[in-house]
């Protein structure tokens, strides 16, 4: 039995996913490329601003890789953090690695650097789409305890392949934010079962929002990343038209604010109530054919 992927640090995750000992870091902590904004707020900075970037090999092929550290400011994207990610993607466009792999764990824009973080997320999104358009597979692994939210939630879904574990979450606004806006009756952030069946890996798999569902296991993430090296789907007009129709159909199915269980049933998932207790393999087998990803081309 392996360690939990979620419980590893960003650097430990990165080391477990790529070929052993192959990671070469750019702008490592020893270079102390730090946030210029946190000190004046009296907030401790990190020597890597919460993200490790560099080159490695995966199954022997050269990839560019980044890992966000959720323990530092929730993986929030500040000016330097975002510039490291955007720089990595721009370098990928120049150097053409076999893939770019992002181990995402982020609450989105780092509010302490609000404006700079927002523009930075946009720069990362544009750079990632440039890399994808160049035919370089873009792969996002979501398995950290903090999930992948906000602007980074959007950026992640711009990639060719999104891999999630069953305990990972991928969404836009956190449940606490929704609860504070509209009350616990809208979204009870303390109801963990509700939160996970609304934003967790199993739900995203069943409704086609992630491309691979794995157990919370570093080896499983590594295997999924290797498989995704062969997955590339250009964003064509036809692909986006198909995705548009699929997303609209899915929204129409839930015209009445249904719960996840009800939505899964309507989409054709057998015995929806049993899903939370199933392991990843069993859930993988239950995805309705109509919900399989279209735009990315899958595998």
């Amino acid at each position, binding site marked *: 039995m392996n360690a939990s992927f979620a419980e590893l640090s960003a650097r430990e995750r990165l080391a477990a996913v790529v070929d052993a000992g192959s990671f070469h870091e750019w702008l490592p902590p020893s270079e102390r490329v730090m946030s210029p904004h946190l000190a004046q707020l009296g907030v401790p900075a990190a020597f890597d601003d919460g993200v490790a970037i560099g080159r490695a090999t995966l199954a022997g092929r050269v990839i560019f890789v980044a890992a966000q550290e959720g323990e530092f400011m929730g993986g929030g994207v500040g000016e330097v953090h975002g510039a490291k990610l955007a720089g990595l993607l721009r370098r990928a466009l120049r150097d053409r690695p076999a893939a770019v792999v992002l181990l995402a764990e982020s609450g989105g824009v780092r509010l*302490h650097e609000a404006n700079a973080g927002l523009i930075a997320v946009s720069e990362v999104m544009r750079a990632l789409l440039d890399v994808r358009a160049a035919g370089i597979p873009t792969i996002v692994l979501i398995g950290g305890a903090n999930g992948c939210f906000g602007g980074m939630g959007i950026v992640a879904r711009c990639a060719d392949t999104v891999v999630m574990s069953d305990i990972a979450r991928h969404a836009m606004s956190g449940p606490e934010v929704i609860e504070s806006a509209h009350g616990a009756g809208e979204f009870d952030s303390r109801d963990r079962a509700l939160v996970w069946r609304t934003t967790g890996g199993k739900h995203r798999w069943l409704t086609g929002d992630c491309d691979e569902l794995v157990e919370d296991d570093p080896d499983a993430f590594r295997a999924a990343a290797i498989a995704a090296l062969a997955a590339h789907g250009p964003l064509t007009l036809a692909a986006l038209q198909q995705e548009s129709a699929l997303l609209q159909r899915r929204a129409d199915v839930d015209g009445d604010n249904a719960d996840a269980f009800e939505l899964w049933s309507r989409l054709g998932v057998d015995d929806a109530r049993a899903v939370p207790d199933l392991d990843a393999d069993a859930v993988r087998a239950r995805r309705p054919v109509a919900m399989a990803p279209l735009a990315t081309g899958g595998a």
Partner: protein
Amino acid sequence: MDWPTLATRLFGDAHAIVADGDFLGGTATFDGAAIAVVGTTNHAAVGVELALRQARAILATIAEHPGRPLLLLVDTQGQKLRRRDELLGIHRAMAHLGCCLDLARREGHPVVGLVYDQALSGGFITSGLMADACHALPEAEIRVMRVPAMARVTKLAEELLESLSRTNPVFAPGVANYVAMGGVRSLWEGDLAAGLRAALADRDTADRRAEEGARRGGRRVASDVMRRVLEA
């Protein structure tokens, strides 16, 4: 400025832009050529349906009018904060909208963003910030969060944030700060049609926001960090 006034200042009577709820769409004639207009109004909270609606309008323009310029009119309070939208994958709907705009740019459509009222976080990342360049009216408001809410979430003193925001554009809402940081390329003042004309004529579609932020002094390190990654 409300959108009908804006439309008249830009196009006179030569437009057929209509609002349907919070969605804005239609076609206008500008300097003798058709331009597609897509956007939101009423400080829209962008949920799954509104993101998809905008995306459909973009896709229809790409499919039916290759190369036609697109003007994105931004007025949003950010993403809709509802459980149903999260369940239905609002992050994917917004990514889809962003990807549609990205495709339009790659297919050669000039895409101009204009914040004419309000722009916040998620709603902005997948609209104006995906244009070739984003512009704004001087009275528009752009922010991630208001200072009091920011103080609450970050557990920092409101007075500290207020005082820092006077010297550092990173912390405070405001169009001028986004110009200084390179997120907004220009402000359209007075003759708005001249602003649109200049934006359409500017066919530099590379992402130069970090360089502009450094040059204007509002975002000093991003450009340098990106360069260092390229040279490492």
